[in-house]
């Protein structure tokens, strides 16, 4: 922690000295200890939630048996295998890829939300708000309806990436004036891009046959149902590389929050940072939504929540957001497929249902505190 002994004012001799030597006691946060605790808590939560999620469903498997199944694969035989005859195969063909996908998508969405907020210097920026997700969905819908298959399994992801990137660049170009991003312009541009993408989606649904139409509806609702290992292996490198690059950029994000000019004066190439970050966000979001559809609010709520706990420094914030997003999505997916028996709720519906009011509460709470949205 950073409590300070008096350093100015000559040992508190004299009225002025003792006045200046006092350190304002509150609010205190962002200590190294607090960060470490949060990382450990999130890490443990991620493991526990993942094991529980993998074991829960029509075929219930105890968490120790889930762990046993994983350890058996790597040659450790301490824990028991699943007692049900189909348990092991259910885990490895259905549950594990789904949980892995939830981890990757949650991490990608939360990380990209944090990156967007950092480069726009604006806590309202989120992939969903500025239309990246719907842009990506439009691209995916186009490939579904037009039956494009030029890159095999990667076609949808690629199209989602490209259109997501275009949507972000569009918002970026339009909402900036005189070197800064206006909040109102940002949100309004997001609305415009979302509306345009919505119209495009509607058009493709109109043109589509029944099967494609279902696929597009699946897009807009978002679901992790039917995730396969192939899909996970496509998303994995995208997410890992994206987050690794973001980690490298995190100190520059700190400097950028001083403003564009001040960041330049400290040696940051602001334009290059922005462009790299936007490509990064398009990559992360495009990669994530390509297989699971639009999942809103994760990118908005998680970075906020983490910032409230450990402060705004971007390196720890990115790590915490990545972990937090993964935990949230695994948990949300668990609820989505178990809340109603024999039914798989769309996870996007769930995150919006909870995320909307939660964000509202967050806004009210933060606005009351000094400093607020900065």
């Amino acid at each position: 922690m950073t409590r300070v002994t008096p350093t100015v004012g000559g040992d508190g001799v004299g009225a002025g000295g003792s006045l200046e030597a006092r350190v304002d006691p509150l609010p205190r946060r962002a200590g190294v200890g607090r960060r470490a605790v949060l990382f450990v808590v999130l890490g443990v939560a991620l493991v526990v939630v993942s094991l529980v999620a993998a074991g829960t469903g029509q075929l219930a498997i105890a968490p120790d048996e889930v762990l046993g199944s994983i350890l058996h694969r790597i040659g450790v035989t301490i824990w028991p295998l699943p007692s049900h005859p189909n348990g092991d195969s259910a885990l490895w063909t259905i549950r594990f890829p789904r949980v892995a996908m939830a981890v990757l998508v949650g991490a990608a969405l939360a990380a990209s939300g944090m990156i967007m907020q950092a480069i726009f210097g604006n806590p309202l920026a989120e992939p969903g708000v500025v239309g990246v997700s719907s842009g990506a969905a439009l691209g995916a819908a186009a490939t579904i309806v037009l039956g494009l298959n030029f890159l095999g399994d990667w076609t949808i992801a690629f199209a989602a990436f490209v259109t997501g990137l275009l949507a972000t660049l569009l918002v970026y170009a339009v909402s900036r004036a005189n070197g800064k991003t206006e909040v109102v312009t940002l949100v309004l541009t997001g609305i415009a891009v979302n509306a345009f993408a919505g119209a495009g989606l509607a058009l493709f649904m109109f043109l589509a046959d029944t099967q494609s139409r279902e696929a597009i509806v699946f897009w807009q609702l978002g679901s992790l149902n039917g995730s396969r290992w192939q899909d996970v292996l496509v998303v994995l490198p995208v997410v890992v590389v994206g987050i690794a690059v973001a980690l490298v950029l995190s100190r520059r994000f700190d400097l950028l929050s001083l403003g564009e000019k001040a960041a330049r004066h400290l040696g940051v190439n602001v334009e290059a940072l922005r462009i790299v970050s936007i490509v990064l966000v398009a990559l992360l979001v495009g990669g994530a939504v390509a297989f699971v559809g639009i999942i809103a609010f994760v990118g908005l709520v998680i970075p906020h929540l983490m910032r409230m706990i450990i402060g705004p420094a971007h390196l720890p914030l990115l790590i915490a957001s990545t972990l937090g997003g993964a935990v949230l999505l695994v948990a949300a997916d668990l609820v989505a497929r178990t809340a109603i028996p024999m039914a798989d709720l769309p996870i996007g519906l769930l995150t919006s249902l909870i995320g909307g009011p939660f964000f509202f509460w967050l806004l009210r709470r933060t606005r009351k505190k000094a400093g607020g949205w900065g």
Partner: protein
Amino acid sequence: MSVFSRRAATASVESPEFVGMAGRESAIIGDSMAGATDAPLGSGEPALRVQRASVEIGGTRILDDVSFDAAPGEVVALIGPNGAGKSTLLSVVTGDQAVTTGAVEIAGRPLADWSLRELGRRRAVLQQQNGVFFPFTVREVVAMGRAPWQGTPRDADDDRVVEESIALTETTRFRDRPLPSLSGGERARASLARILAQETGILLLDEPTAALDLRHQEDVLRIARDRARAGDCVVVVLHDLSLAAAYADRIVLISAGRVVADGAPDAVLTPALLGSVYEVEVEVIRHPVTGTAIVLPRRATEPAIESPKHAATTAAIPSESGESMCVSTLEETP
């Protein structure tokens, strides 16, 4: 202080031999980039030089053929009326504003030859706006000033330099509070601490005293002067002409995009010059002890109101220059 004594002062800051040694040392360390910015500013050479710079934005000429330089060891104040081009001149030096014609050199090298990172180690800029988008604490913000030194041998000093800067600017009391929660003056001082932590050798301060109370105005300019005495080059935009007179070694008066005067405070701060540039009558008086110039707009003294029931009075007040000024006090009471 005359122009001649200023030259004498700059000549004694660092000897060329010392500069050469520092350069060789960092070449051995292997960080040639750091070497270029690690070395003390050369003596004799101006730390920054603007040659015949003009800036046009949207057809409006904001700077018109401005030449200006500043040497290590001196505090140069840029003064002039609102919209004269002081901040534009400063942003030309920082590289935020490209010149339409003309040239800018930092430490003897054209501005375009510097990488942003190198510039971050060579010159620090205090802007008028000192916000931060997210609730970073004062200490975190000050530590950001160390960013250009990351990965160089000097990043080992980070903690010490940050603490010293915080102590020097007397921001210790709110060092753990989020910057956005502070008052304008506290924010300005925290930002000054960040600039000092950057350890650049060239300080460019755009109205650093604007949000500050009497004591902290003095503190900030004293810090600036101390930095100059230690060999730094300080350029500061000021509106308070008496502050400029008290702390600047040299004053550059700018009006309508041109340099009108450039010299020692006594040479620039004359009633005639200031009167014509600021379009207000000005008197310059001397401090009885220090002899420093104090600049005041000529204010008419109002006659004492003798009766609460008098009608509008007109009094002729003789002014120093011999001419009379008419002042009317307002309105009768019913």
